[in-house]
């Protein structure tokens, strides 16, 4: 239940910045997901909170009290690493009951807590097995159960569902959030899966190269991301390069390649400024006929991708740019065939506008 604060926390490994002047707060009882590509500093951040690493600079506070000097085992935080280490000679049930026993519960109570937690991770049937008899995904669930049952008020999870099959991951993430919320603990959960982060988090922190680029509610990060990297990481979009043509109080007109004009929401930008426009796939409508209206572009369907509940179209615009459209599935057969000429359209309010990044668009979209 503690709140966690970072004030200008920096951590270097051999001179390389792993966490760069991180300042943020996690409220008591909050569920925060830390999202970022491999190597962005997610695990380092978690280990700093756990006390397994000491910051080079800055202060870490729990409930407003500095903990820099407090050893890991005195922080009342449980850290479930990606490389979980179960007790090999104890059964699954004993592994999970270990925490409650260690903090003074009776054997009956501890076993009862362990059974309930194993039920939550869907492993009741394997309570008497030894870790070596389980698959990697099952072992990860035992490690998660052990963390949940430990009774710590701060849960630090590093890719807790990473070793699981996609289908099971989908099921467990919702249970995980439910359980955390029921018990009122504070949870910080590291993942590279944006669907997982969106599903479980009260707030999402986006990391890149050790820096916090965004930290907000899922809906806010999705609809008003702080930059191109965040926009792309948190759901993908089509990005078009352009130049500001006209600035009005309620809108901006951007000229993209081929002289096409797109109307975007008002932003403090100057005429002739280079910008990138981002449009979420599901906001792009497709029409078989030519339309005369704002934000209508003509193009040709290049590819149609069946994704189950949705279908994605890859569309080449007349100016050579590519735009993606995600449609909710109405029938088995695609409504639009490859090579078909179509119009795409989107609302002015659906256009995200970003200043042109100093190292170019490709660099912002690179996931490393």
């Amino acid at each position, binding site marked *: 239940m503690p709140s966690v604060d970072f004030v200008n926390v920096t951590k270097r490994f051999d001179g390389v910045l792993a966490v760069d002047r991180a300042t943020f707060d996690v409220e008591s009882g909050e569920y925060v997901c830390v999202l970022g*590509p*491999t190597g962005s500093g997610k695990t380092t951040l978690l280990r700093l909170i756990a006390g397994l690493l000491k910051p080079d600079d800055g202060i870490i506070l729990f409930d407003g009290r500095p903990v820099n000097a407090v050893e890991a085992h005195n922080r009342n935080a449980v850290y479930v690493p990606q490389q979980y280490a179960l007790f090999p000679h104890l059964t699954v049930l004993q592994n999970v009951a270990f925490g409650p026993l260690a903090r003074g519960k009776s054997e009956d109570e501890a076993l009862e807590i362990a059974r309930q937690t194993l039920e939550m991770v869907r492993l009741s049937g394997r309570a008497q097995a030894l870790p070596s008899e389980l*698959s*990697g*995904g099952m072992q990860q669930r035992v490690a998660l159960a052990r963390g949940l049952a430990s009774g710590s008020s701060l849960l630090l999870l590093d890719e807790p569902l990473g070793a699981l*099959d*996609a*289908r*099971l991951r*989908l099921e467990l993430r*919702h249970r995980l959030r439910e359980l955390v919320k029921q018990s009122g603990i504070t949870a910080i959960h590291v993942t*590279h*899966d*944006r*669907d997982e982060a*969106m*599903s479980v988090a009260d707030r999402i922190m986006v990391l890149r190269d050790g820096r916090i680029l965004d930290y907000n509610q*899922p*809906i806010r990060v*999705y*609809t008003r991301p702080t930059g191109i990297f965040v926009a*792309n*990481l*948190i*759901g*993908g979009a089509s990005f078009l390069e352009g130049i500001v043509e006209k600035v009005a109080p309620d809108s901006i007109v951007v000229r993209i390649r081929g002289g096409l004009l797109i109307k975007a929401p008002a932003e403090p930008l100057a005429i002739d400024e280079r910008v990138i426009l981002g449009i*979420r*796939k*599901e*906001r792009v409508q497709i029409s078989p006929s030519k339309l005369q209206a704002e934000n209508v572009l003509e193009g040709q369907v290049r590819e149609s*991708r*069946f*994704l*189950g*509940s*949705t279908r*994605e179209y890859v569309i080449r615009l007349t100016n050579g740019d590519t735009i993606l459209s*995600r449609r*909710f*599935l109405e029938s*088995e057969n695609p409504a639009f065939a490859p090579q078909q000429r179509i119009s795409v359209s989107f*609302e002015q*309010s*659906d256009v995200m506008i970003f200043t042109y990044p100093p190292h170019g668009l490709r660099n912002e979209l*690179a*996931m*490393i």
Partner: protein
Amino acid sequence: MPKLDIVGVSKAYGNIVALDDVTLHVRDREYVCILGPSGCGKSTLIKCVAGIEKPDHGQILIDDESVRDMAVEDRWIGYVFQEIALFPHLSVRDNLSYGLAVRRASGDRITTVANEMLDLIEMRDRAKSYPKELSGGAQQKVAVARAIATGSHLFLLDEPLGALDALVRAELRYDLKRLAVDLGLTVIHVTHDQEEALSIADRIVIMKRGRIVEVGKPSEIYLLPKRLFTENFVGETNLLEGRIVETGHASCLVQLNSHKIELKGRGRSITERVIVSVRPESIVLASRSGERNDRWEGLIKQAAFLGSITRYVVQVEGEPDLIVHVPSTGQIGGFRVGDRVDLLLDNSEHMLLFDYPKAGLNDETALG
């Protein structure tokens, strides 16, 4: 131009049956995804094809020729697995050249093929890089190109994208498919990721407990699966237990716990136990109107904004909680926890009727 026939293949490890009488015919130039939970036998199956494992029973034929007495290297198979296995001390170019060098091809031939491969994966500018200087996605592309360079036309991919970040994975799968189509490869791609399989496979093979559950095109597997296991495994769904109470010409009426629902389906008999599956995206939510009695009344228990959709958990009197996916409008809004709503389930096109499984619902839908 290889085609592959797997006929009645079984394989056991001690008393654990990994493959149980598996028969599968893969056509020349076909892209087949094998999808199933961990431990279902999918990796064992392709290891038998590769020659890394020997089946206890059954036959494997490549272009109508039995491979029983063929050594691994004589099967002329490209094999790529999850753990990226490039030679760390060799450059990208040397990694790509390795297979041909071992086969004592001429220097000119090796250079030509390596250049072709670099172009194929659009990595000419990284020819001199070492694996550790590349992102995971780029390394896996090199691994695939290295397998292609040997001249194989039959490819076995075992979770080739499993070690990569979600966003990279989603991009790279289309690159894989494009390579396969352009080069006329026959591919068997093992995955536990439903969307990956749906988006690139010509046909999907669903496996469970060492057996093939069913085989079909992606749209058949998602929209019209024959087995309840498939329906539940490939995408989220709501499963409701009921009994047939009326049968009509091409439809029937099912009594659920406390609601009745009309569905397409013939050949059913009164009092037969069934399972009705309703996909989350086929339920419509509306504000409580109190006017129509064909609507179900519900209470929003959970709401999570997931980007292109919002996921609700809705409590319905007498029935299990229902998951409902509603396309997001792009603006903050929608229903809140505690809101009373009406559920419209009159879209019977998207509801499927299954026989009640003989071994029970839990056994049928078990992910292992």
